[in-house]
């Protein structure tokens, strides 16, 4: 176990996701406490005190986002759980939706009570079918038990929920793109100002939080912020779910207490590298986070601050482990093809930049690269950094420059020799 477990604290069985078993584990006790013993302001204060950071990618303090909502401003407020989970390497929200849907629902009820939300939504990516069915079934159970609808638990708090399915667009994972999609339109993100907490869904104050961020709310309210802060580190309280994939023996979703040593996690919990190969590099938090070499991570702990200092980020918690012998040029082709496919096309730098980067890497992989291509990739990344409507442009740039910074020599070799130094290999099939 990589530290204390808060969310993945029960054995997963065929029925562990049901309301009955959730209740057996103490489920909906936090909701009861919130509705009967706390005020909305108390809840916001508690969540702020917990130091909970967003678990979707940006690590923005959840309490700080909530504080913008004015409880009695006369506007309808909306809460949306972001279950779009499209960041390559990430599949941990899926774990919650399939195995702990009631933890999410209870947390959303507490949050709705705190933020004066009458209608909340879960926006779930269209491809997630089993997670959708599990969540929809949990919603049915909750309504039947009077946990949604009017006068919940006999109080005057009423709340309804709709589970809304996406239809295939990574950019719908961006909060304003998500709301555009939820409004029934193409998923074009929006410029800020105004912030979504001021004008969001149908121009009303809206809080969009990641599924895992929200799922921590019931735990924080149930046990208290102080207890929560005892887990993790001062700058990175609590735990994070990591989706581990790539060249490890035991890929999967793991809950890690923040502060846990990274190499220990990979060697022990994740079963070490396939065929005992050395680590070449790791993408820590989804493809949009900068890659770190085996040497970079040797002494790091899994915390936000460790990664920020190392020039990367925990991001979405999508950890992809890459073994020695993997061709980073061929891997970059996969990555840049992804951003090109997913760019919504609204703003100039990303629309043209993602296509340009993809065409350059295709040309390099085809053996037709030229030395200036590397500088060109840096140029495109630089002018997508902080210039776009949403983070997709920046992310494409980070993914690209992160790999170039660490593995430039592989690209120079490929360009000069018109072939990969590692035969274009992406797999880890043998020990060497």
């Amino acid at each position: 176990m990589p530290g204390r477990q808060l969310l993945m604290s029960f054995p997963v069985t065929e029925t562990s996701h049901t309301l009955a078993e959730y209740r057996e584990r103490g489920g909906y006790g936090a909701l009861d406490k919130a509705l009967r013993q706390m005020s909305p302001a108390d809840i916001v204060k508690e969540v702020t005190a917990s130091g909970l950071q967003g678990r979707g990618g940006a690590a923005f303090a959840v309490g700080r986002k909530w504080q913008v909502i004015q409880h009695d401003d006369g506007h309808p407020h909306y809460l949306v759980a972001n279950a779009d989970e499209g960041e390559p390497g990430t599949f941990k929200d899926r774990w919650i939706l399939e195995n702990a849907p009631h933890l999410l629902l209870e947390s959303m009820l507490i949050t709705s009570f705190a933020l004066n939300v009458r209608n909340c939504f879960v926006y779930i990516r269209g491809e997630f079918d089993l997670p959708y069915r599990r969540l929809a079934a949990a919603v049915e159970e909750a309504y039947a038990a009077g946990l949604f609808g009017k006068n919940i638990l006999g109080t005057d708090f009423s709340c309804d929920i709709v589970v809304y399915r996406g239809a295939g667009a990574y950019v719908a994972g961006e909060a304003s793109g998500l709301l555009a999609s939820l409004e029934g339109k193409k998923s074009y993100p929006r410029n800020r100002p105004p912030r979504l907490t001021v004008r969001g869904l149908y121009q009303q104050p809206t809080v969009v939080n990641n599924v895992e961020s929200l799922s921590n709310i019931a735990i924080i309210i149930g046990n208290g912020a102080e207890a929560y802060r005892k887990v993790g580190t001062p700058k990175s309280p609590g735990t994070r779910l990591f989706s581990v994939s790539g060249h490890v023996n035991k890929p999967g979703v793991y809950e890690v207490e923040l502060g846990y040593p990274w190499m220990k996690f990979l060697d022990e919990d994740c079963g070490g590298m396939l065929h005992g190969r050395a680590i070449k590099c790791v993408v820590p938090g989804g493809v949009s986070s900068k890659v770190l070499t085996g040497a970079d991570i040797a002494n790091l702990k899994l915390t936000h601050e460790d990664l920020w200092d190392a020039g990367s980020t925990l991001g979405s918690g999508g950890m992809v482990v890459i073994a020695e012998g993997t061709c980073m040029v061929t891997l970059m082709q996969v990555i840049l093809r992804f951003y090109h496919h997913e760019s919504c096309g609204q703003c100039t730098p990303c629309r043209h930049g993602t296509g340009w980067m993809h065409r350059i890497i295709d040309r390099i992989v085809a053996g037709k690269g030229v030395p200036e291509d590397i500088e060109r990739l840096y140029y495109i990344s630089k002018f997508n950094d902080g210039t776009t409507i949403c983070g997709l442009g920046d992310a494409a740039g980070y993914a690209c420059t992160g790999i170039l910074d660490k593995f430039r020599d592989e690209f120079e070799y490929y360009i000069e020799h018109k072939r990969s130094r590692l035969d274009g290999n992406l797999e880890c099939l043998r020990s060497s």
Partner: protein
Amino acid sequence: MPEIFINGQAIEADANLTVMQVAAAHGHFIPYFCWHPQLSTAGNCRMCLVEVEGRGLDIACNMPVSAGMKVFTESDEVKAHRKAILQFITLNHPVDCGICDKAGECSLQDYHYTYNGAASTSRDEKVQSTKFYNLSNRILLDNERCILCLRCTRFTHEISKSMALGVERRGDVSNIRPVEDRPLSEDPYSDNIIDICPVGALLSRQFLHKSRVWYLKPTPSVCPGCSRGCTINIWHRKPEWFVKSLDQAQNTSIARVTPLENPAVNGPWICNKGRDLAQILERTRAGEPMLKGRPVTVAAAIEEARRLIGAARHPLALVSNWGSNEELDAFKQYLGEVFHSFVKTDWQPEQGERIEDDLLIRADKNPNTTKARSLFHAGAPAYNDGTDLVLVWGEGASFASIPAKAKIIFLNSFLAPENGHADVFIPVSTQTERSGHYTNFAGVVSGFEPCFPKQATVTDAEVLFKALAAPARGHP
């Protein structure tokens, strides 16, 4: 009023405005493609990026002013970013200015020379897309030139409300497309998207490849298509660029019509009828004065008209509501005592034409009803058995209703069968051949200037009325 700083200059800024608007109002030009004062803020072109001390770069069109902010519009960072944005925009742009009608009035061309000036740094093939796409029977779309600023789609959603345009697909294969049941052809404001397109992606089919814009000059005028009286520019060949060996009719024809921005009347828009003014104003002209179909000189025609006026006991006039303020005043002054005058409605709405809406189009399809009715009777002409002379000025008269025994003096610009039947026919000038003013439905007066010389046998109505008031030779 918060105080902000733009390039070091302290400015008292309206708290409700964006940095873009404040900068523009104080002479600091920030380049842009997608921003338009009449449309919602899209913020997608990223051309208006400016630097704010302590905050880095962000777009100015969506940036609220805040007290004490220090904005820099010409810093090295801003300049480098403008160059890069232009590199991105021209990455897949065909740069076919040599065959593009927009050349000479294209924001992309202008910004390239001002802010970039460098060739593309890409070695890769440009993304190709549809060219010569039939957006409607009036508008051609070139998706390769399109920079997806979305001004056109926003126009159809927010101004004309035809909801006719949208974007298909995504990324760098996105294309502007019309909705499939084609209401763009039914949108009478569609051609405004040609004006607001900052590049040559949306082109007028009627103007396609007709002329380079730098050979043309715009003359301010007023659209006579309805009582809104939108101010327009009529574009025609500059005298110094008159063709000598090609078809010389080019020198005296309307090349195109565009809006002349006017906050009091039409803002920056006109409807398609105004674009098609050549169809009205360049119909075959009546060439010569005639007496019952027999060509005569202008002097002879005027003399005969004076004689008929002198001899008439109950002369009646049908006054044109296409007459200018000056012409109507002249009629009143010189012939108002002579004729029992009624305002005629020269033009009725045509089949399929939009009657009225809450944007620009008015049901009265005539430019000067307001002035005409301020001087003369509205309502049907009071013919009776005594009516022995009818002066018909302009089009739209019901000749069948004129008593059979009355003589007819007919003043018209255009070729018509009735010209040859009138006792006296005198061709008169159109609005492109003189200056004048119209008064619109709300009382706003707008002026037009002449574009073309008139033929020698064509007379200005204003001059004619004074001439007709003089007695005939041999009469007191």
